[in-house]
């Protein structure tokens, strides 16, 4: 589904990713871990198409297509979803309107009829339960005044509505208490299907107790320095990152 080959990317001329190679197949969950500044979030942003990041070499193939050439909105319409580390507040646009606009954009790209507000409300009702969200949150402005936990649940709600093929969760566990973490993780697990894949970017192993990965990759200095299975995450939790960084150096 996703083939990243020797990817180099920079922001404002500063190289951040220095040769990432990663292959993700349908049905898999990959965890990307690493210390602060290792390039984890950059990788997530690059995959989603953030305009501030420039791909300087290498390639990203998504379902066989060159992802780097697609605008962010087209990636989303093709099933790529990024759950933001810091979800953006948009005062003045209701959550319901925003969700439906996103949903309809995808429907349109798939050649399907757009849904009206009533149809959409029926559809979103189930998804709200998934993240234990009060329907009243739909009429509030997108993320405006939401607590940290509410924002992250709102990200997962969007993910549930858009049913992405490739979901990238960027430090979704940051700032969450254990209850909110469970809700978010349960939502993500419920959305796992044999034909979709998830990349979980996280600093801590804790999240991986709830979202169990098939593969764990450690990013340092813009490269994947070690890959393994879920045991690697436990080892990192126990020993920290330093031993690995020393071994690589």
């Amino acid at each position, binding site marked *: 589904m996703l083939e990243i080959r020797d990817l180099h990317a920079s922001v404002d001329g500063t190289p951040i990713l220095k040769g990432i190679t990663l292959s993700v197949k349908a049905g898999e969950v990959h965890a990307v871990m690493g210390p602060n500044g290792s390039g984890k979030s950059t990788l997530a942003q690059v995959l*989603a*198409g*953030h*305009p501030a990041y420039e791909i300087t070499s290498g390639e990203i193939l998504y379902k066989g297509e060159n992802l780097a050439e697609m*605008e*962010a*909105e087209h*990636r*989303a*319409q093709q099933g790529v*979803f*990024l759950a*933001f580390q810091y*979800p*953006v*507040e*948009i*005062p*003045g*646009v209701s959550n319901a309107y*925003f969700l439906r*606009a*996103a949903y309809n*954009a*995808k429907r349109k*790209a798939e050649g399907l009829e757009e849904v*009206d*507000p009533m149809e959409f409300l029926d559809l979103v009702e189930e998804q709200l339960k998934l993240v234990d969200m009060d329907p009243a949150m739909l009429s509030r*402005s997108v993320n405006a005044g939401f607590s940290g936990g509410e924002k992250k649940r709102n990200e997962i709600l*969007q993910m549930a509505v*858009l049913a992405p093929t490739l979901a990238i969760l960027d430090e979704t566990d940051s700032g969450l208490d254990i209850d909110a973490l469970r809700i978010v993780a349960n939502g993500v697990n419920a959305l796992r299907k044999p034909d979709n894949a998830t990349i979980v970017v996280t600093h801590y192993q804790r999240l991986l107790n709830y979202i169990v990965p098939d593969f764990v990759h450690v990013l340092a200095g813009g490269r994947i320095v070690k890959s393994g299975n879920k045991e690697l995450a436990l080892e990192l939790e126990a020993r920290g990152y330093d031993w690995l960084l020393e071994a690589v150096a």
Partner: protein
Amino acid sequence: MSTIALAAPALLEQATAAAAADAPEVLRAERAAGAREFRALGLPTTKVEDWHYTSVSSIADAKFERMSGDAAGVTAETLAPYVFSASWPTLVFVNGSYAPALSSTSALPAGVQVMPLAQAVTQLGDVITRHLGTMAPASRDGFTALNASFLGEGAVMHVAKEMVTDVPVHVLFVTTDAGAGGMQHPRLLVVVERHAKAVLIESWIGLTEQPYFSNGVAEIVVEDGATLHHLKVQREGRQASHVGTIEARQGRDSHYVSFAYTTGAKLSRTNIYTVLDGEGCGTTLNGLTMLDGSQHGDVQTRIEHAKPNCFSRQIYKSVLDDTAHGVFNGKVYVQAIAQKTDGKQTNNTLLLSKTAQVDAKPQLEIYADDVRCTHGATVGQIDQTALFYMKSRGIDNERARQLLTYAFAAEVLETLENETIRVALERGTMRRFTAFVD
């Protein structure tokens, strides 16, 4: 005349004649004062600090004739897009004169009176005698003087003590092609007696692409414990010049809640002045200005904290496109006696083009030492982070930009208490920026 006054000979000639013409007894002195003051004041040049960013020389040089009052061709259907609810008490003025056929006051709540000034001179003579010219004296500036010299059109609204109503009273000033080249100087006088609550909408509607000049003055008294919500909608024609002054005086524990919605006119200036003249009162002055083409829109507010323990809140937003020019000057005066004043002013402008411009000037003058007053102004383009967020959800660039523009404007519309008004203005704004509504 001088560097601070523009001679306006055509206007002066007409003002002098108007003041000399026969007038109802209760208006005579104010008219005379108007003509006298206008002769002395003229119109302000851009050398006058308050008018630094807005030149009115085009008004001084023009030869506007008083509008004829011809209401031909204006029907309820014509006005439907501008009347928020046909069931609300409505006074309509067309081309400067009261149009009884288009007006209806049958739905007036008990204790609320609203009528044309011409009728009020007999029925509400004591209200006029007591208040007219006291909030907005003819000596204030050239435009107010000019308005005074033509006193005769406009409306008086009186809300008896303890009468609480949420039903808006709507006063519309409509100009059609028959008003082309014309001018109107209506006066509104609103008195909300103690512990009463009322809602007033003042609309300025242009149904012509021809030039004309509107120069309105609203005087507002909010007595002790009373509340007035006052919406001013300025949707004048694209070639119009509009100057509108609102001057309020507030009693103890009163609340004045104003919203200025501005999309019209080629050249416009809105003044909203209030004096918090009793302890424990509050003022909320919010507004939204949306301009494009070569429109020029200037909003000036002045809040005078004259007594202790009062609060004021201001949120003004502008969305400017093409070569439009917006001006916001927010003045807050806190007198030495007005301790514990709590004032907050926010002014945000969104520029949609490189050639649009804004002059934002917060102005705080504080003479008391135990107060909290803040102000903040931002000028910017579409928020790139929010834009990427929307795009990352599949919403295309154009639509995301439209939605964010709408959202910027809608945020301040959310402060409107009346849902019918809020929804109507939100829909209008949605249509303006996104070409879709639902």
